[in-house]
């Protein structure tokens, strides 16, 4: 792994096939699939609550707060609503950011085609 990154992971067919370094959940990271690049930051929102903010092409597509850090509407609707971003929410499950059971169960049978990479640059 290069010195710029503190964590890198590769997911193929929904399975974590390569992992290197240490992922820190409160630091920014990037989820890169063939279709999109999502940047995720752990920040305070305008109400001073701490949330994960997800951006695609510099545009915020969602902010997810405690305790589950995923959209409330459940996996199917969320994925449909947010530009078919399966890789993003799958990454949230893989990285243990969300413990929401519906999302975990959903991806147990809906992740076979997912191919993407996660990277986190050195934070501090």
């Amino acid at each position, binding site marked *: 792994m290069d010195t710029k990154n503190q964590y890198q992971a590769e997911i193929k067919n929904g399975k974590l096939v390569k992992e290197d370094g240490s992922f*820190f959940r*409160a630091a920014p990271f990037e989820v890169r699939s063939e279709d999109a690049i999502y940047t995720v930051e752990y920040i305070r929102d305008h109400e001073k*609550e*701490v949330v994960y903010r997800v951006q695609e092409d510099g545009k915020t597509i969602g902010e997810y707060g405690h305790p589950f850090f995923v959209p409330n509407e459940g996996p199917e609707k969320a994925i449909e609503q947010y530009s078919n971003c399966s890789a993003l929410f799958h990454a949230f499950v893989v990285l243990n950011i969300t413990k929401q059971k519906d999302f975990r169960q959903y991806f147990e049978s809906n992740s076979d085609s997912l191919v993407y990479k996660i990277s986190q640059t050195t*934070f501090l």
Partner: protein
Amino acid sequence: MLRFYEIADTIDQEVNQFEEDIKDFVAGTINPIKFKAIRVAHGIYEQRQEHTYMIRIRCAAGGITPVQLKKCSELGEQYGSGEVHFTTRREVQLHNVLIQDIVTVIRELLTVGLSTRGGGGNTIRNILTSPNSGVDKEDIFDVDPYAIELTSRMVKEPDSWNLPRKFKIAFSNNSKDTAYTQATCLGFVATKKEDQDGFEVYCAGGMGAKPMVGHLLMDFVPAEKAYQVTKALKVMFDKHGNRRSKFSNRLKFLWKKLQREEFVSLFLEEYNKISSDKNLDLKIVDLDNRPKIDASVKVDAPKDDKFDIWKERYCLAQKQEGLYCIKIPLQLGDLVSNDGLSLTKLVELFGENTIRCDRAQNIRLRNIPEAYLGNIYNCVSSFERSLVEHASFIGNMINCTGAQTCKLGICLPRGLSVAIRDKLVSSNLDLDRLADFRLNMSGCPNTCGLHHIADLGFFGKVARKEGQMYPAYYVLAGARVAAGETKYAEKLNEIASHHIPNFVHDFLQAYLINAEEYKNYQDYLEDEGKDVIKSLCEKYSNVPLFSEDESFYIDFGATRKLSLDEMGSAECSAGMFDMIDVDRKVIRRELKQLDAGTGTLEESLYNITFSSTRMLLVTRGLDVKRDEQAFQSFDKHFVETDLISKEFRSVVQLGELVAKGDLDKSVLTGKKSEIIGLSSAVNELYTNMDDSLRFKKETVVSVDKKEEAELVEKDYRGVACPMNFVKTKLVLEMIASGQKLQILLDDGEPIENVPNSVKLEGHKILEQIKTPDGHWQVLIQKK
């Protein structure tokens, strides 16, 4: 410039080290449990939302200057939740701080003389006083300067940071004991003897899940000797306190173990060594409580006609003629940053000694000339979240943050407090007749909401109906607080959270109807109040089925059904690291002495040898009772296994012979370099330890050598925390993924902690059954 304590010269170095520790934690080279032990001593707590932190700021005697509070408000706005939170320990906290901002906040606080050091951990905590000390007409004398001077000394003494457990100190200005000295580790109550200022001294009190009322230690000690008393008790606690169990190592447990005679004798042994040393006497600088106001400051007329009732409820004439102290009731202890900025801008006109935090999570102003009360009223009644329109009873209600942010919380007392407030203010109860009533709530058995010293108190619990969990509270009543007469509230019954607002209303109504027939609340309670509580609990005992009313199962202020999934009571691993830390610190201290040429050479060398051999035994599940066992166990588990080079075997064996008394410690003087080498080797091994308690040099046990039985059974009855957890963890390391381990644990701390710690390590608890003989059988499935 007024400061409520001095900060140790070593602080910059400590903050720099902490900054490095944070970087290591983020990079994954320090695990979360080790990091926890480091951060809590800096007053940094992780909130229920992981990676979101609370910063606790020391305010000795509850004092904070306008400039300091302004800085806290600014930092709260920039780096936190937009608020400054006032606590029941008379200090302030910033919430929702992100890890990358922690050190910036700490350094900014230092610029105005505020420190977070010792906000948590096994340290001398914030030293409390009576909230109106110095301005109270009933002062025996002002005790604030004693708390200030004592804090300044304590934070500079290295042994204040590594005690067996947290150590709390309080000073009361008279026998009404408004600082609750009998509910704390060490308490001083101002008194006079033949015109000499002095203290009655109480010790070994404490609340928490196992509350104990403090005992009289000395009936009079000259006031300036408060330092020697504190120092002696601290040294005695350091020497004799129980470091092995995090859950029974407060000073109160030492009293219980030793009983009065031995406890007092050990204390006096230390006290008599230093009591006559006048150089140690506290040098008190009186706080100035005289009016300070620029004559050009305009006197404002009150903005509305509610001023008079506000003045009656919240303003109290000081003993200094013409000056007032004012209580500012805060909603749930929160001061919105903008309100903090407007308040401090106004209050700084009246001097630096103008603000105190109080234990009901409110602000107390002091030294305000009567003519300017309108200015204050106009300011506080414009607060974004103001309670000034309500009777003071409302602002006096105490609640901890509960499960909203605290990892130990079960219920949400903040939500409950709001629900009670809404119920009461919409009723026709005359709450002004209850101005001094203490209605205190905690979200769990820990006592952050001071339920043990409540007139009517509650603490959170989980209740179940047909298997579904719902939020509930135990009901307590009847605490009495006065020096030498303190009695904790009695647990009377339990009640569902959602019934409490009606319950409180009905109880207070019953009390107010009958109050005039009694001398005081305690008499009412004894005569009929307890029966009223019991009958109201009966009246409100109905709990709907989950299918009938789901909302009953969702706590006040929560958005989903009660759950304990995020609770973090797992202290076992932290306890293990605490044990390691005890020896690490001894080694560091003794190495420094060797460098400086201070101390006794042979004594230092023995201590280094002993601590080096004992330090890592806990990782093998070993707890030694005698010194020589440490050397023997170390040889067997670390030298024999080649984790530590055999070149150190000779010093280990020498240590054992010294421990047995067969050789004098002086034999170690010729082995200095080997002993230092041994300590380095042990430290290096520790640095390389992974989360599974394995060292890099260790061979990983292959799967086929693992315990092959389908179900592995272990009996840890009689094994204390955290050793039972360490042993469990070691067995889990040996078995295959998915395999099951059944352990037997004692009731009490073991069953409260081990399963949670195991869960936090990622394993599953499949079953937890109480056996007929009172032990617990826990079935674990390895992750």
